[in-house]
């Protein structure tokens, strides 16, 4: 009978497997239907693995292959950062995932190869500036390049670590990007922006997916009343990229060095400090810009809503937070993947305040939050005050508390 058939195509449970990926995100979202399962892999990367876990991403890939029984239905790559997509580019781990034959690969519009980088128009300009930035970080922090910066460590070892950490996260990740594109070609590729309908009911029956971010350049301008993102974010970065693209550029390779004077050393130390600060400022802005290309997806099925915002920071969120209809949906969120590893402005106050299901331990249907971090690997995340809020007002699943386990499953009855 028709009614019965419909029920069979409605998921009854969602199981979110949070992997301990080191400093990085990897979630396997499984929808359980009466007769079958559908698997969605959301991000697969890290910048740092825990000590002695060099093959971690391969182990995770094997675990995913085992759990899915050899078939992935969808891959979501929220944005281009290494801690979200590195695994796709690794020889062994990437191959394992590729062999799971995903039906669809979902990425933000900023990755869409059909928006030509060398064309005019705001979308192309945006893609172009992102590419410039990636090229710049590649030059500075790509394989073998980082040695050129080693002398800056003398200025401040701590700031230097921060610089290389953020820098490495922002390199092009060419192999991963190509692998995602190849998988998208084999199946189907979706490049989406805020409010763009994502029709994959055939693949995930009974599940609605709302795209809340990233906004396009025009959508962003409408909300912020800024003439365009290019003016406020991308010009500075592009210019900085243009300047620092010259990393390692020696204007006088043949001129002899000075070895014997003492009175140049004080200033040399100060100049190293200035250089370090300047680079740090650039990579921090760049990091933020990349985070703001992050997909924000809201999965809805039955009465439950699961929110996966990648690393979206405030500027990306602004569009969604200004939309009344989206805000109504956000009020009902049951599972929240904490944005950007718990950083300062990735969980905007107004977003947190919007969640109806936050509350004390006795709160019925209390919010579940998923947080992935690695102790001591990032200087600004997670923010302590946010972790405290998450721990007291929601059921917190935190990778730092996995105690050696590779993953944790959160089961949600839909």
């Amino acid at each position, binding site marked *: 009978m028709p009614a019965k058939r419909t029920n069979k195509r409605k998921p009854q449970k969602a199981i979110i497997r949070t992997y301990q990926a080191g400093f990085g995100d990897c979630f396997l979202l499984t929808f359980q239907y009466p007769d079958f399962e559908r698997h969605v892999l959301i991000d697969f990367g890290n910048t740092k693995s825990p000590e002695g876990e060099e093959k971690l991403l391969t182990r995770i890939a094997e675990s995913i292959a085992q759990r899915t029984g050899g078939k992935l239905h969808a891959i979501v790559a929220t944005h281009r950062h290494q801690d979200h997509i590195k695994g796709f580019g690794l020889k062994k781990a990437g191959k394992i995932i590729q062999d799971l034959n995903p039906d669809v690969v979902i990425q933000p519009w900023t990755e869409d190869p059909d928006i030509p980088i060398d064309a005019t128009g705001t979308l192309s300009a945006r893609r172009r500036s992102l590419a410039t930035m990636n090229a710049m970080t590649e030059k500075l922090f790509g394989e073998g390049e980082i040695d050129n910066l080693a002398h800056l460590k003398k200025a401040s070892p701590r700031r230097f670590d921060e610089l290389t950490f953020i820098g490495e996260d922002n390199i092009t990740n060419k192999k991963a990007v190509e692998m995602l594109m190849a998988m998208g070609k084999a199946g189907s590729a979706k490049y989406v922006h805020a409010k763009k309908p994502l029709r994959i009911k055939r693949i995930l029956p009974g599940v609605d997916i709302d795209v809340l971010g990233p906004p396009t350049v025009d959508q962003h301008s409408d909300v912020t009343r800024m003439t365009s993102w290019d003016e406020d974010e991308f*010009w*500075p970065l592009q*210019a900085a990229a243009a300047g620092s693209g010259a990393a*390692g550029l*020696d204007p*006088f390779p043949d*001129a002899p060095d000075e070895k014997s004077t003492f009175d140049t050393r004080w200033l040399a130390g100060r*100049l*190293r400090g200035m250089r370090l600060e300047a680079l740090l400022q650039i990579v921090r802005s760049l990091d933020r810009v990349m985070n703001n290309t992050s997909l924000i997806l809201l999965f809805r099925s039955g009465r439950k809503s699961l929110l996966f915002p990648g690393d979206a920071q405030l500027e990306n969120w602004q569009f969604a937070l200004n939309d009344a209809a989206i805000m109504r949906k956000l009020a009902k969120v049951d599972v929240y993947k904490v944005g950007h590893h718990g950083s300062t402005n990735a969980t905007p106050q107004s977003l947190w305040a919007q969640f109806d299901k936050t509350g004390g331990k006795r709160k019925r249907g209390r919010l579940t939050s998923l947080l992935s971090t690695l102790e001591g690997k990032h200087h600004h995340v997670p923010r302590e005050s946010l972790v405290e809020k998450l721990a007291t007002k929601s059921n917190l699943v935190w990778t730092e508390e996995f105690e050696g386990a590779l993953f944790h499953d959160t089961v949600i009855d839909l």
Partner: protein
Amino acid sequence: MKFTDRPAIRSLWVLAQDPSIFDRDGLPLMTRVDVVNESLAPGPKGARLHVVDYNATTDRTLAARKRNHEIDIVDESLERLKTEKGGLELTKTEKRKALSELIGHPHFHTQNVYGLVSSTLREFERALGRSVKWNFASGGHQLKIAPHAFADANAFYSPSDEALAFGYFPAASNPKKIVFTCLSHDIVVHEATHALLDGLRSQYMRPSSIDQAAFHEGFSDIVALLSAFKSEALIDLAVGEGPAANLVKTGNLTPQSLRETALTGLAEEFGAGLDHEQIAGQRGDALRRSADLAPGEDLYNDENWRAEPHDFGEVLVAPVINAFIEIWSRRSAKLDPVKTGYVDRARAIEDGAKAASHLLRMSIRALDYLPPLNMTYRDFLSALLTADTEIESADSYGYRDALIKSFAAYGILPASRVKKDGCWEKPKYEDDIVYGFSRHSEMSYDRESVFRFLWENRTPLELHEQAYTKIISVRPVSREGPDGRLLRETVAEYMQLMDINASELKLLGIAKPRGLSRDAPVRLLGGGTLVFNDYGMLKFHIGSGVASKKQKARLEMLEKFSEGDGERGARHFVNRHFHRAMSARRRATELKA
């Protein structure tokens, strides 16, 4: 015992603008600048400057010239090439090649920055009639200059590092070509002026009115542009071709025509060469902007212009540069009394350079007649007028008249409205001021003596008795007066500081800015500049108290830019220049579009 027999001054070759600007023979446009003839150590390192060729991108320190006299070798080679003295008979192509090799050498770069910064320092010291110190926390005497500090499209003054840092970057049009900010006259002089101004008015780095925030940028552009126009080589280029090599049409010397050739024309020429978009922000792009900014009496009070300090700086540069054009034209008109339609080219060029020189000196002298903090553009105009009147009571070439009109065209009126000439008036309660607490001579150097004078006269000088008060500086000044004799003055600065809560503002008669909570802590800053004449009598008292109405504007500005008081140091200028570079790039794109 022996005294030096060295001549006090020597001159050095520097680039008149940058390597992309050529003279009529197609050779890089160069000029000679006068610097103090000092004993140099490798660097060059002199009494006030130390050029350190360390590069933080490559982690290399380039070898400096080993001996003092080697600076002469580069300079003499240049001299030979430029003047064809010394028996060199080269073809133009050979000359071009030899010059380009010399200019491309890092030792010339160190000479260029040393020459330009030294001559700017000397210009300040001559105008002010005394030495100028750097504002370094260490009390050090030598400003460090890194001509190739890093690969970046940036250049800045960093007080905490006691340094000027100049970056270099690959040209967008040709990545193999490197653009050196240390070879741009405007950038080098602009950054040197930041350092000099900081030494003279240490409080101007504090956040206060938008005028004060913009003044550092605007004033540095003014000094850079007027210094460039002081060079006859550049003026020659600006005047354009004449009917004969030694003549120029009077039609080329009207204000309108000079504006087109000397401002717009030169700005375009500068832009054509050196990957302009990239360098625009560093060199300040001041020429283009002052040529583009049409006068408007609403400009000074226009909230759009007042929103950004680096934009608002332009509102100060344009009137000064327009006054320069006006004065140059007036001077040249006198060269053709019988209206032949032509004037002697050399004289017209000399007049332009003289006008630039005089205005530059006026602008620098004006600093002594500015309040130590909370300054406005209107204060600057009154200071300019006063500085010039003190030296030359008759305005024979109409400098002051041109400045008043030019500033008025942008909506800037003199701060002092009591006197018709716009100059500062005498102290308000002059007759109540009491002298005789310290000896006359002590008052010219001793901070304690000046403080005692201030304390005893706190009522006629309208100081707040409960504020923390201190003397910032006491500087003896000697200048050549109008009668050719030495004019001696003493310039002293004091500041007052008071920490209160916002709710207490009304007790002082200051309106609380909107958005400031009642219990917010507020720091009020006031102060004044005291100018004593040769007899030790107070001639001017320029400034505003801790409870003046300027405080409201200052508090609103702090609120608007969310800046805490006291923020200063490297980041301040690094960021400001960074944003400025962006703004110039944006503008360049808009213009193209």
